[in-house]
């Protein structure tokens, strides 16, 4: 029996891209999304990545009879798009769920930055996501991963409070110092929350470097990679390989051999015998935490900085972020399902990522993920949408006032029977 474990977790997410929304549209047209682009991109990625990779995972799970295990986190935004544009992807995830070897993690429904902005909104989105996962895959998530692996002491406390005993985050160098990410840790201010930290070096060997022919380790074989993992885990119990699922077939093309690599990996690992595969929930049962980790300012898995400046690093981003979350209170008074729905999609972290100015010079990788030519265009477009949203919100709010006034009037009038009804309960 292998004493050490590999924890493979894949992130599945697709943003709800906004259409070109001009000033002239404000107040006239409240459809914000580029359905054509969203559908086209989703169907392409489904063909190149989701469907073939799910098929491969299913085969490997069958082939190794329970010894190969993986975890997924699928954002609500992605699941909505699957339901609309490629329901067969949902079916293939259901087939994976049915094997019992796959753990589905909880996250914010809209892949949002709510954990940084609003506790109530954060909780709402986590619950909404968990409910959808349970509905689709029949399992209630027990492990949490936040958008882009964003974590801080405070976020950890909220997450534990919501009933999650385990959380995934980045093994950020500036936080870890000399410590190895290959152990289970706990939160500093919530010691009952267990933390699994991404081994960024080994994860990025697959996610970023795999097809790079200029890399002195190219080409990467499963055997070579197992040796690296053994080397890394000399110190430690686990190797946490966390990456975007789109790595397979989309970021790294099928021609690069990425699927062959993944097909060979479980066999190579199991043959070597040092490692087994385990899901996050199994890992925390099997291994004891070695220490706590102090994270005052939020960390993430993005960029060299491993902080949140990819989304909230410049004045455009903070302005957009402030303006969108300033509406939370009014929204909960109005409590309109259509507005909630748009509000959720407008919170997707991707919209803020498009406004990032860090990569003006070497924006190749980022450009790939970005439908806008410049961060300024992204900002203008987003703010125009927000303006329209605000108008709708204000109109609904005003209508509510009229109703309430009428209600008050009725109360004042000599009533035939006592009026006891209050305004509709808010969620």
């Amino acid at each position, binding site marked *: 029996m292998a004493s050490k474990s590999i924890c493979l977790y894949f992130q599945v997410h697709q943003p709800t891209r906004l259409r070109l929304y*001009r*000033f*002239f*549209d*404000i*107040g*006239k*047209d409240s459809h914000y999304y580029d359905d054509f682009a969203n559908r086209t991109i989703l169907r392409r990625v489904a063909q190149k990545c989701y469907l073939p990779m799910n098929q491969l995972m299913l085969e490997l799970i069958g082939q190794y009879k329970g010894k190969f295990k993986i975890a997924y986190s699928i954002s609500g935004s992605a699941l909505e798009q699957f339901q609309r544009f490629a329901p067969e992807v949902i079916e293939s995830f259901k087939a994976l769920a049915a094997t019992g070897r796959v753990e589905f993690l909880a996250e914010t429904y809209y892949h949002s930055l709510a954990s940084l902005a609003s506790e109530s909104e954060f909780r709402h989105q986590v619950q909404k996501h968990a409910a959808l996962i349970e509905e689709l895959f029949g399992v209630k998530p027990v492990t949490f991963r936040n958008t882009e692996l964003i974590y801080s002491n405070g976020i950890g406390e909220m997450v534990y409070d919501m009933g999650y005993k385990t959380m995934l985050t980045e093994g950020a160098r500036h936080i870890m110092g000399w410590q190895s990410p290959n152990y289970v840790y706990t939160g500093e201010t919530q010691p009952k929350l267990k933390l699994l930290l991404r081994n960024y070096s080994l994860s990025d060997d697959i996610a970023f470097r795999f097809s790079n022919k200029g890399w002195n380790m190219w080409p990467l074989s499963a055997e070579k990679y197992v040796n690296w993992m053994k080397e890394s885990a000399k110190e430690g119990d686990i190797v946490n390989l966390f990456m975007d699922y789109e790595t397979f077939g989309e970021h790294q093309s099928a021609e690069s051999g990425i699927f062959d690599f993944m097909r060979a990996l479980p066999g190579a690992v199991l043959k070597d015998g040092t490692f087994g595969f385990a899901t996050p929930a199994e890992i925390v049962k099997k291994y004891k935490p070695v220490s706590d980790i102090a994270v005052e300012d939020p960390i993430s898995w993005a960029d060299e900085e491993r902080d949140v400046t990819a989304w909230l690093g*410049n*004045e*455009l981003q*903070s*302005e*957009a972020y*402030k*303006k969108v979350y300033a509406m939370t209170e009014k929204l909960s008074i109005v409590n309109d399902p259509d507005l909630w729905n748009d509000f959720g999609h407008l919170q997707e972290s991707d919209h803020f990522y498009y406004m990032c100015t860090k990569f003006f010079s070497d924006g190749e990788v980022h450009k790939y993920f970005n439908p806008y030519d*410049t961060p*300024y*265009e992204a*900002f*203008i477009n987003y*703010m*125009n949408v*927000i*303006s*329209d949203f*605000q*108008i709708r919100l204000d109109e609904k709010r005003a209508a509510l006032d009229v109703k309430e006034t009428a209600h008050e009037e009725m109360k004042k009038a000599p009533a035939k029977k006592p009026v006891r009804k209050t305004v509709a309960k808010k969620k």
Partner: protein
Amino acid sequence: MRVLMFGWEFPPHIAGGLGTACEGIVKGLAYNGVETLFVMPSASGDEDQSATTIINASDVAVDNVSETVEEYLDKVKFIHIGSNLVPYADPEEFGKLVEEDKKRQVKDFSISFGQKFKFSGKYGANLMEEVARYAMVGGTIAMQKKDEFDVIHAHDWLTYYAGIAAKELTGKPLVIHVHATSFDRGSVDNIDTRVFAIEKKGMEIADRVVTVSDLTRTTVINRYGINPDKVVTVHNAVDFSGRENLVVERGVKEPVVTFLGRITYQKGPEYFIEAAAKVLKRTKNVRFVMAGSGDMMNRAIRHAARLGISDRFHFTGFLRGMDVQKMFALSDVYIMPSISEPFGISPLEAMRTGVPSIISKQSGAAEILKYAFKVDFWDVDAMADDIYALLSYPALADFSARMGYDEVNALKWNGACAKLKKVYESVVK
């Protein structure tokens, strides 16, 4: 009276306001009984020639108008194709370089004779070369049409060389028309010295200099050192004939305050943003739009974001075609806070659409528009006051809209061109 006129563009294919003004001028001149031959670098053939005859410089081969190449070069010696900057050359070496350059020029010009040059007629990278070639072709045309005009009229620095060449070769009087100067394109300590030199040369050689405003007249006199006696202001006009005002369905409920133009330093976009922030402190019932693009656009976006007003301050990017009319139709107040504006046609467009306008005192239009609100470009408090007043007091807005509409409709090129005809008459013996 017959005029050989050098322009750079003519509707329908225009990049700026110069072409539109030229069309108004030739039509106004025709009304006043003045015939024009209008030369442009690259005509498309779909120009309206009812009031003028268009000569496409791209169709004309450079003629051997002088006895020898040397003589030609001697007459039009100011023309240099290409710019040869040689840093750190000692005097002897420099002399040698100048000789070589002269030889090269003679060669270049010899080759040019008998050839046509395909002008782009745009404002591209080899603009200086096009300007010099335009002068050569312009000289040729002037010689060919020698008996068909009495006076030469050149619009803005791009055509000054052509005008000078025509004057040097035919001996006929030259009027140059200053629609803008280098000081309207860059700040005082950051002007293009090559363009400045061409402008100064043109103004010095011209028999009369026409400016589009007294503001520009002052610039010509003070900054270019031109004798005030030969500088005459003829204010621009606008041709609104056949214009129907658009009816546009509004999306936003709030009144809209609009800036429309290039987002560059001289247009004062930053002052508009500051004024907007001040107004928004007093009322939320307003939206601001900055329409257009330019090298200060990104800075303006950041500026608005920093002030936290981005949900009320919108950017549209560059507007094309009908979108410009649409933007005016959606506006309740128009603002032009230019730091330097030789004339500024956009407030006239706004007022014609029934939109009250606030313009900077540093614009030529301020000299003739009685019913526009005038503020110093730097006075954001006054700007904010006027915006607020126009939004809050309907009587004021209605009055200025109505009076402004009548005012700009009364501005006609026919009147401006009568003045222009007098200018011609003063130089033709």
